[in-house]
């Protein structure tokens, strides 16, 4: 069951890759990165449960923190309207 869930989450990431490819704006591509943050956190938590390694919870925490920082970096530094 849990293994199925990891496949579903990888599926969501595949769909997000499609959005990166299509864009059309930088902001649209940023959305995929936001999805990686949430799905990545979920995926890491699930793998922690499947493998019994609760240390992976710490990794999920780091994913969540990075998700917050990337959006700030994107808006402040990377993106200009019209890209």
């Amino acid at each position, binding site marked *: 069951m849990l293994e199925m869930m990891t496949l579903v989450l990888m599926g969501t990431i595949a769909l997000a890759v499609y959005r990166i490819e299509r864009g059309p704006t930088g902001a649209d591509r940023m959305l995929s990165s936001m999805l990686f943050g949430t799905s990545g956190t979920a995926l890491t938590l699930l793998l922690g449960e499947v493998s019994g390694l*609760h240390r992976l*919870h*710490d990794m999920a*925490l780091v994913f969540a923190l990075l998700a917050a920082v990337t959006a700030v970096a994107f808006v402040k530094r990377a993106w200009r309207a019209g890209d």
Partner: protein
Amino acid sequence: MADDEPRISYVERLGRTSMRSVVLVALWIVLAEGDLESLKVGALLAVAAATASVALLPGPLPRLSAWGLARFVAFFAIQSFAGGTDVALRALHPRRPLDPSCLWYDFRLSGHTPRVVFANTLSLLPGTLSARFDGDRLEVHVLDRGASTTRSIAQVEDRVAALFGIVLPMSGEVE
């Protein structure tokens, strides 16, 4: 931001640093999943983080009302469900029913923190998304013009106000 913070006395600084240290130590214990041995490092880091926190935000943190918080958590949980289900059904519906629009909402709440909490809450609730602050107004993007109105947004604002123990003018009207 830091410029308009009030200057605080030594005693206040010490008090706030200790209070925030206690909260951070509790958070550390949760993150270490109860491993008290790790507090050797954790306690030190908690005090360092509390010191940094008081240096950056010396003013008192806004107080939350316990009853308001309990009601807010229940409201938030139910509305998250509604919001997730609403957007999931729209995404999976063959015709993808959407009627988006933008509207300006005039804040009744004052104060930086309550407004930010309100704007963030709106983004997580059904059909609304905070897009832009402009003075005392907030631009809200709505997924369905028919479903999200100034009135439904005002109800969320009332909940956030209750969280901070604030009573808003005209809040009885939207209840």
